[in-house]
């Protein structure tokens, strides 16, 4: 048993790792194929099994049979970062208030307000899509980055509040007090003393906002058409037309790579124990 255990342990770890990596490796090898490499059955190794070509990658930048990926990339960055920034500012303020002060409106108390924020995640996108469509139409913001940012704030604000409330609950109140003793107003104390000490929590909240913002498809799909086009929409549009697999694969890889860097950051905060409070 004791000699078998490490074998089983590393076997399981490597087995799951293979499952995790497989789609990326398949996409990577497919992105260098041409028509012959794809239509003659599954091929894996360049040079040995098929003749590699850069066609898939050049087609992303205006090459033949492809798309221009630069504009959707920029739109995705603008919308994701814009909505994340607004959500973090509003969410951090609200979470600090909910963690430090007592609010009451009739029977509504702090815990109910927190629940209201977090419960927005239960709403399936399809329920909101039609009203959002009409709302943005009314505001003249259909098919615009600003319209999407407004919609994404509704999706990301609950995440920011959820992460930050638990974070502030674990920050000692003595810290705020010292600021008050020095004669700061709550707002000043918050900005000068609490915020700098809350950076790990804010970064974790920001990472989650960026992940969920960058990865949304449905709202971008229903609320934008031609003027603004986010990456997932651009790539799925390729999927439904007769786009070759090499272009699909290259575009998929280029759009998910930045998020892999975020995985490294999330792991850092995880190992330092900064994520523990957020899930209780």
């Amino acid at each position, binding site marked *: 048993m004791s000699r078998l255990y490490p074998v089983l342990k590393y076997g399981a770890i490597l087995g799951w790792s293979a499952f995790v990596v497989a*789609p990326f490796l398949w996409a990577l090898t497919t992105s260098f194929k041409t028509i012959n490499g794809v239509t003659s059955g599954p091929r894996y190794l360049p040079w040995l099994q098929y003749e590699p070509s850069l066609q898939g990658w050049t087609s992303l930048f205006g090459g033949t049979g492809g798309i221009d990926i630069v504009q959707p990339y920029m739109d995705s960055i603008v919308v994701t970062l814009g909505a994340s920034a607004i959500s973090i500012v509003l969410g951090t303020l609200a979470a600090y208030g909910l963690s430090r002060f007592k609010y009451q409106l009739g029977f509504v108390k702090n815990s109910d307000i927190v629940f209201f924020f977090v419960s927005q995640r239960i709403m399936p996108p399809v329920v909101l899509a039609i*009203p959002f469509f009409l709302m943005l139409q009314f505001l003249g913001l259909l098919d615009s980055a600003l319209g999407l940012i407004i919609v994404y704030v509704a999706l990301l604000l609950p995440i920011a509040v959820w992460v930050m409330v638990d974070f502030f609950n674990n920050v000692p109140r003595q810290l705020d007090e010292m600021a*008050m003793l020095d004669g700061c107003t*709550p707002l000043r104390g918050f900005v000068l003393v609490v915020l700098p000490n809350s950076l790990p929590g804010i970064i974790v909240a920001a990472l989650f906002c960026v992940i969920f913002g960058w990865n949304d498809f449905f709202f971008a799909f229903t609320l934008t058409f031609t003027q603004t086009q986010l990456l997932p929409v651009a790539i799925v549009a390729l999927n439904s037309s007769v786009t070759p697999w090499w272009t699909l694969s290259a*575009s998929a890889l280029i759009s*998910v790579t930045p998020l892999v860097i975020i995985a490294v950051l999330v792991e850092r905060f995880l190992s330092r124990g900064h994520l523990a409070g957020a899930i209780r």
Partner: protein
Amino acid sequence: MALGVEPPAPSSEPGVPLSRTGRRPGQLEGPGTARRYKLYFLLPGLIVLLLIILFPLLFTIRVSFSSWNVSQPGLDWIGGSNYERLFADARYWASLGRLALIAIGTVAIEYVLGFALALLVWREVKGRRFFRVLFLVPMMTTPVIMTVIWRTIFHESLGPANDVMALFGLPAQQWLTSSGAAVVSVMIVEIWQWTPFMVLLLLAGLLSLPREPFLAAAIDGAGPIRTFFRVTFPLMVPISIGAIIIRLIEASKIMDTVYVLTSGGPGTATETSSYYIYIRGLRDFQIGYAASMSFAYLVIMIVSLTFIARGLNRALAGRRA
């Protein structure tokens, strides 16, 4: 808005000492100033969320009582006939049942796998930082985009999925075109994408556990299996319940994967509630009917999630005693 300013009752914060100024920590200013300042913190976020969410919700409820469709757009009043139609719509209830099956099935598998993987990279493993990162990667990637890749993997003759089956001596499958296999394919993609989320939540929980119970178990000479059932698992129960509920909420919204992988097909074999509502609402433009389906769906989700949360609490926490 009359948000009252009752200062926190002293008994509500046991163990927090009074500060030098005699004020309770958390009660930062005298009542008059506190009222103003505490609203500055909460209101911007709350008002923004209410503005963005309240309109769609109220609007959906109102539209669900109208006959709004592609030929007659507008808010007339037809009473509850959309809801009558809904109760007789077998396709709607079938999509709900399918959603329950897929969501509960994937989340159960994700929980078991995620817990096992989190335990594996918790301690004493070579390269654990590397494997932790690797185990998180799929949840960072865009679901629709990775599903586009999965679709090429599941291609019957040109994709590698059937190669892998042959490697294990298993028969080739019609991954996306036979109804049973299509459900399995959707579940495989979901499990690939979201098991990392379970790993993240459960590993964060494991890393925050106190050390003393484990030392005590070691002194008592408990083996790894005994330690797990007597110490680790009971300590992880609250985190487990939280993680399962969060994943169930997210899994119940499943839509992107289905849209790209199977479009609900073959037939309606992988059509979940969100996808059916999408077809009726945004493809057929039966806005009124889709709104009634949406609202009924919301109510059903909230009720069933409450029951599931209670059931989980009883089932998992009961074992601790």
